């Protein structure tokens, strides 16, 4: 996990590539592409994705398995390992391009300015170290060496997520799934970072724990004002928590816009399909169909729109041309239905 590199030099991250960003955005991802180099050729798992994140903003990235959402998140956090490779684009974090930074410079940023909470806390936490020892590791890596400071801060963050500080002495297997995930979030809060990246942190939990963890994340976010990128396959989960929603399909952004807007009037046929995919707990019981077919194999590039084979609204142009992101009423959708769209309903 966190390396014990205590005496590192001063923070030298202002590489030549970094231009001071004119906007107030904390994170700006531009034209980011990630390829997996495999025996049979390359697979473009993230294709030209651009987005920006304002301070304190909560952006949810949703999509099916294999749509590239986790790869995108790993690329943003610079956690990709071969055979995955960033082949194009930049990730500007507070004016610094993270792409191509040395491990040493990244270590200085990790935990301190940006933390990552992984999907399975059981795998992300070290099973043979107590929670407290792992917190200590992260802090030692950032030059917090006083025992008192470490103990004090560790207890503080654990209390913040509603866990009794006695659990600093507990090992991961002694905690329930919800508590493990909470302690991961506590660890991410050690230095009150400005950006927290979360990869399906709730998917291993059941509904009640899931709900309370989401409420907790939102409360912490409101208190400390960090920005969140939240990756999930369950759109309904983030409906009440995220400011902006980015729907991914086949490595591309299919639709992006304000969360409520997307839920109220989804533009892309894929988003519409996702909306129809989960049953409701209230109201009339309606038969649902979900989205027929399965996500495309990205190794087999086809002409035209990736979603065309599953799309109920497909027409000729979709099979021969690749759509761009077209503006639709405050959102953007990658669908020819909106090419030349000038407001109003479709």
């Amino acid at each position: 996990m966190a390396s014990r590199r205590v005496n590192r030099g001063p923070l030298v991250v202002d590489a030549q590539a970094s231009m001071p960003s004119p906007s107030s955005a904390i994170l700006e991802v531009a034209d980011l592409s990630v390829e997996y180099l495999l025996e049979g050729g390359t697979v473009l798992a993230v294709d030209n994705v651009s987005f920006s994140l304002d301070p304190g903003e909560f952006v949810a990235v949703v999509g099916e398995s294999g749509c590239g959402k986790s790869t995108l998140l790993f690329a943003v956090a610079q956690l990709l390992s071969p055979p995955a490779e960033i082949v194009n684009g930049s990730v500007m974090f507070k004016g610094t391009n993270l792409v191509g930074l040395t491990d040493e410079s990244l270590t200085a940023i990790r935990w301190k300015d940006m933390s990552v909470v992984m999907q399975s806390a059981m795998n992300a936490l070290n099973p043979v170290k107590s929670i407290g020892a792992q917190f200590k590791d992260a802090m030692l890596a950032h030059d917090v060496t006083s025992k008192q400071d470490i103990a004090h801060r560790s207890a503080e963050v654990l209390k913040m997520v509603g866990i009794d500080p006695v659990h600093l002495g507990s090992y991961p297997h002694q905690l329930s799934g919800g508590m493990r995930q909470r302690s991961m979030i506590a660890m991410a809060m050690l230095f009150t970072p400005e950006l927290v990246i979360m990869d399906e942190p709730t998917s291993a939990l059941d509904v009640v724990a899931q709900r309370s963890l989401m409420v907790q994340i939102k409360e912490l976010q409101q208190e400390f004002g960090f920005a969140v990128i939240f990756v999930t396959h369950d759109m309904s989960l983030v409906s009440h928590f995220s400011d902006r929603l980015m729907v991914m399909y086949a490595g591309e952004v299919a639709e992006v816009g304000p969360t409520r807007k997307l839920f109220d009037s989804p533009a892309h046929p894929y988003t519409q399909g996702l909306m129809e995919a989960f049953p409701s707990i209230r109201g009339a019981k309606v038969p649902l169909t979900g989205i027929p077919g399965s996500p495309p194999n990205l190794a087999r590039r086809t002409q035209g729109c990736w979603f065309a084979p599953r799309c109920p609204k497909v027409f000729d142009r979709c099979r021969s041309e690749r759509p761009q992101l077209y503006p639709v009423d405050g959102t953007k959708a990658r669908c020819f239905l909106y090419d030349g769209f000038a407001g109003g309903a479709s």
Partner: protein
Amino acid sequence: MTDLAQSGTAEPSATTEPLLRTDGLTRHFKIGNALSRRTLHAVDDVSFSIGEREIVALAGESGSGKSTIARLLARIYKPTSGEIYFEGKKLSAIRSRSERLRYSGLAPMVFQDPFASLNPVFRVSHGVLRGLKLHRPDLTSDQQYEEAKRVFDVVGLTPAADVLQRYPHELSGGQRQRVGFAQALAMRPKLILADEPVSMLDVSIRIGLLNLMATLRDTENVSILFITHDLASARYIADRLIVMYAGQIAETGSIEEVLTNPKHPYTQLLLSAAPDPRAELGVGAETDRGEPPKVIDPTPGCRFRWRCPIAIDVCHSITPQLLPIADGHEAACHVAQSGAEVKAFG
């Protein structure tokens, strides 16, 4: 038609006997060592029934004992006390191998993780044909192959002849879970024990599996015990709902009745935790931070009392019984049984 347990003693008249009935089903696990003998009460005094052509949803958090019930019904565990009746015959009276085989064919299980439940080195035809050889030896091998094709067609794996020849890794998660149902169906079951069959799948694929389960009930006349923690998918297909908490039934009844008129505070908690994007925007006010208890050597009293905002004195001393509240609606809650309005969560 099937003589499950010839040696079984005469049981209550078969005229009103449901397909499956449990009577005071209890399963305890011994934990600790020679110095501290303790008992984990995984399932305590649970009585319920499943009728013909009925989908019964068994809902609750992790640790509520729902998977233990599935394993008891599948004869993986033996009950500590209590009895299971299948078509009126005691399961405990099963002695011979042929009786065991017949029962496991009549009540097969479908597992949660489709990535772990299929053998990766065999084609998917292997599993289904093996089941047919064991359970339907009267068929010739050609007939067995035809039957395998038929069940693959029924579960929507088409073209069946083609899919049968594939290996598990060539199939998506949803397709693999369909293979699980096809294997169960090949044995001409009366009751499928489905332990969280959709929780590992992407939201967009779940709905297809839920529709499949409803089809199996409607066209193949199979009953299903549908174990889930998602009340929305339970509502979508189930006829009846059993809500479990800490090894006991908290509330049960027809699913619409229980969900529109939940009487047990725990059911209300589960309902309020279910993400519902169609509901009004806003983070709920409920702040449940509790977790389901491990029930070790319990003292009398309601097991939900520590999390219950409306607990009264009697809840701490007397374990509530499951009693009728309304027509076909039972709840184990002192407050609800006193006739008072229960409004704990949501």
